[in-house]
């Protein structure tokens, strides 16, 4: 059974599960072509906490919490919970920050890019091309010896910090807790933030995905990276099955609409759909995982991945406060500038953080 998880059948099963349940989450209430979006959902969580005040995107998404719990349970069940920290955390925070900014310029993480494409949103094709390009730049740096250094085993309590934070967020969501009049926890009254599946369903599906993704090491960035770096399609089978299952499910649910215009929570600016995801792809590559993978690793006790996740949440707060995030009409006023800054920062990291060539 153990070899099943690391076999192609294992990762294809994970992809099929996500590809069926993500469109279903949309059917059950999540926003358009956003059954799962790690970036958007972390942004919604940032909004719920008041880190930004974009009123239409404030909601504590239980899917994210489910990802952590599912991965945690899988890790413990198979004795893979390994609390570890120490691999340049401040760099990972900054990478998460810029990854989120890039994703919010495109309006999606790689998972959402695949879901959007599987729903006929052709703008996502630009995003996926950008993602591949960004990962490709990361691969160049990897070949040049890029490394953030090793992490070290640490106390069990350290590995539990992000899971406990997620437990607290779930409690706040379930209780719909308000700390002050008109204050956090914010729940959108309109817009994507008010579109959500019942929390029990969101949580359950999230946990299922977290479990499967932890077992199979599902990673949308790694899928492209391994094809380019070592010509290994193993992770890619996972995203192919994900996209294929999502396409079929969308067709069956009447959620398929082919074209560029009028797509839900999307814009048609080809340049910045591409550009935003170049930044996101490069940042994910330099950090060693797509945003989903970082969450699953956090559930395994990886404190460096947890810092990346927190960097993404903080980045989302900044993105909406500083006009970096896109809307359906196109990039925000400072979005493109932020992408360029982010690319420069990531390139700087790639060039300066290299091991000695022996």
């Amino acid at each position, binding site marked *: 059974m153990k070899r099943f998880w*690391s076999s192609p059948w294992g990762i294809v099963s994970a992809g099929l599960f996500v590809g069926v349940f993500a469109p279903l989450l949309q059917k059950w209430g999540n926003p358009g072509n956003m059954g799962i979006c790690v970036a958007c959902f972390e942004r919604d969580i940032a909004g719920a906490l008041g880190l930004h005040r974009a009123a239409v995107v404030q909601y504590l998404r239980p899917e994210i919490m489910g990802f952590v719990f599912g991965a945690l349970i899988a890790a413990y069940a*198979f004795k*893979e919970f*390994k609390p*570890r920290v*120490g*691999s340049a955390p401040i760099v990972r925070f900054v990478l998460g920050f810029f990854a989120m900014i890039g994703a919010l310029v495109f309006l999606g993480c790689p998972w959402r890019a695949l879901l959007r494409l599987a729903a006929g949103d052709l703008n996502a094709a630009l995003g996926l091309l950008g993602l591949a390009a960004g990962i490709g730049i990361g691969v160049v740096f*990897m*070949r040049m010896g890029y*490394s*953030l*250094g*090793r*992490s*070290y*085993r640490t106390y069990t309590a350290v590995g539990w910090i992000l899971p406990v934070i997620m437990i607290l967020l779930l409690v706040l969501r379930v209780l719909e807790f308000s700390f002050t009049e008109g204050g956090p926890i914010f729940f959108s009254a309109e817009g994507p933030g008010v579109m959500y599946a019942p929390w029990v369903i969101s949580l359950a599906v999230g946990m299922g995905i977290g479990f499967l993704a932890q077992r199979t*090491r599902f990673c949308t960035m*790694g899928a492209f*990276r*391994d094809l380019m*770096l*070592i010509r*290994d399609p*193993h992770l890619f089978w996972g995203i192919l099955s994900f996209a294929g299952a999502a396409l079929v499910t969308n067709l069956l649910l009447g959620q398929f609409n082919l074209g560029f215009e009028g797509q839900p929570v999307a814009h048609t600016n080809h340049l910045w759909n591409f550009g935003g995801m170049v930044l996101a792809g490069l940042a994910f590559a330099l950090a*060693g*995982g797509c945003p989903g993978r970082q969450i699953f690793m956090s559930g395994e006790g990886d404190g*460096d991945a947890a810092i990346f996740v927190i960097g993404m949440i903080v980045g989302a707060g900044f993105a909406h406060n500083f006009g970096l995030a896109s809307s359906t009409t196109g990039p925000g006023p400072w979005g493109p500038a932020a992408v360029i800054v982010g690319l420069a920062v990531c390139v700087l990291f790639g060039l300066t953080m290299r091991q000695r060539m022996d």
Partner: protein
Amino acid sequence: MSDQLVDARGLSCPQPVIMSRDAVKKLESGGSVEVLVDTVTSRDNVRRAVENMECTVEIQEVGDEFRVMIKK
């Protein structure tokens, strides 16, 4: 005794794979390299990567870590 020792403990993907592949590329037929990793993920990734390079792989569990012995 292996010709080479690669310590990839604590390194996140794709580094263990990159380091292992680089070491295997330098090997002559019959040579061997030993890769140290400390996660199941790295162990499986390294095994899959070098099995594609026509090497034999033997894995020893040493406490929490794994010794991946690769022979060309």
